[in-house]
């Protein structure tokens, strides 16, 4: 396999590609196609959400008003900040600054962890308020007063969407954190150069996508119908 041997001298070039440019283009196309499948994956959930929100608007509004808007907004900012550090990390890899790459990757992980921590606090509140569909569903007091007008069954559907959408999002965050950890380890070994940093870029795109999902989840779940 003289061909492959010749290729082997180029770091990171897989045997099926002719040159690094072809490989980079293929990688970019691949990750973007993957993100499109993610759009459709979350999209099914968003479509179902759109239907029920339209059918049971007052229940969704009631449910939305139980959520803590401050925590939601804070989390939005945390996640946006993590996107910034992620973008800076890709930039550092691009310029060949290994230390900055690692630092920004770790910063991204810390911000991601903060997001998940706040999410955990919110989830815990839902158990305290007994508004977890199926597992702990017995709204009382003020929650009950807010949810009752839209019908408790329909409010339960709202909270199902709340947990399904944020849960699926959190799962993506956890996968993203694992990928970041892998990047940190590789970056410290010095695997990435200004010519080869595709993994950082690919994980970066994934991380930004997860951020975009949250950009929509925040208004869709927390800001229904206004809080005036």
């Amino acid at each position, binding site marked *: 396999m003289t061909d492959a041997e010749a290729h082997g001298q180029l770091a990171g070039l897989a045997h099926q590609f002719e040159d690094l440019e072809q490989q980079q283009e293929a990688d970019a196309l691949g990750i973007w196609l993957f993100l499109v499948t993610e759009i459709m994956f979350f999209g099914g959930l968003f479509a179902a959400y759109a239907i029920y929100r339209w059918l*049971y608007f*007052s229940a969704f509004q009631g449910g939305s008003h139980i959520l803590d808007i401050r925590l939601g907004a804070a989390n939005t900012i945390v996640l946006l900040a993590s996107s910034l550090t992620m973008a800076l990390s890709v930039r550092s890899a691009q310029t060949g600054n290994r230390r900055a790459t690692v630092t920004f990757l770790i910063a991204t992980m810390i911000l991601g962890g903060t997001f998940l921590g706040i999410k955990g606090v919110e989830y815990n509140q839902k158990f305290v308020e007994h508004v977890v569909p199926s597992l702990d569903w017995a709204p009382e007091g003020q929650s009950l007063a807010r949810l*009752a*007008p*839209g*019908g408790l*069954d*329909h409010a339960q559907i709202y909270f199902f969407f709340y947990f399904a959408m944020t849960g699926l999002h959190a799962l993506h965050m956890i996968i993203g954190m694992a990928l970041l950890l892998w990047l940190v380890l590789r970056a410290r070994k010095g695997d990435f150069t200004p010519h080869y940093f595709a993994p950082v870029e690919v994980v970066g795109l994934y991380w930004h996508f997860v951020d975009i999902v949250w950009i929509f989840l925040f208004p869709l779940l927390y800001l229904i119908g206004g809080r005036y």
Partner: protein
Amino acid sequence: MQSLPFQPEQASSIARSVDELYFFLTAVTLFFTALIFSIIFYFMIKYRRRSPDERPKAIQGSFPLEVLWTAIPTLIVAVIFVWGSTLYFRNSEAPKGAMEIFVTGKQWMWKVEHPEGQREINELHVPLGRPVKLTMTSEDVIHDFFVPAFRVKKDVLPGRYTSLWFQATKVGTFHLFCAQYCGAFHAGMIGSIVVQEPNEYESWLAGGAPGESIEQAGAKVFQASGCPTCHLADGTGLGPSLLGVYGQPVKLTTGETVTADDAYMRESLLLPKAKIVFGYSPIMPSFQGQMTEEQLNDVVAYLRVLGKAQPKPKEEGKK
């Protein structure tokens, strides 16, 4: 039935028109299948390979031909679309004055309730020549009310009313099938539609008369559930008057307007807070789980009767 039937009986007013479209489609299918088959056979024989190194001339294609065989199918499907949709659309609504019968599906039987109060299981007696409208719901999973001889079919959904209508044109007994898979004995969820001459139907009705019409049953449930406490006839109660409401537009607190049809009545019983009439408070309790599907049907039937009545003059300013 005889040895090998190739057509189900035509026993309803629409059966013939559906069959006409069916036969047209069959003709189209046969024509094009025969056309393609014969051209292929002809070409395969005429242009069979005669020597191993035969190299036929290349043909790139022909734009006029492409246009032709795009246009022809387009025209044909346009005709079929218009034909099929018109037929369907025209028949999607029951004619005025149709006889109303409630049907409830449950695993694995059909329960039928006539306006006069007769109940049947897995059988439906109807008079010849009179439009019959079925208002259907299910107690559990999705079923489907299918009468091949009438060419009608509609899913029967839990938590919702669907309806279909037919006008029988032939006296006899016809198959009723469940056509949406519904569990272990789906195949056993069958029954028969008995079409009788109107006078026979009358005597059948008289024969098994339970002494209580569906509205009377509904009125009883209505009273027993305490509905009249709030829904006062003059509109001064905590709830809106129900007189003269059925089939009319109702304004909601959200500013929307809905038609007070069966679906709305049903929803108001089960999810009273979903659509509140303008000017009233969401205080009505839900009757979900309190009433059986049949009792719900009875009440809806009674509400239709109330709906026919003239509303009492309403004083303005009711909160």
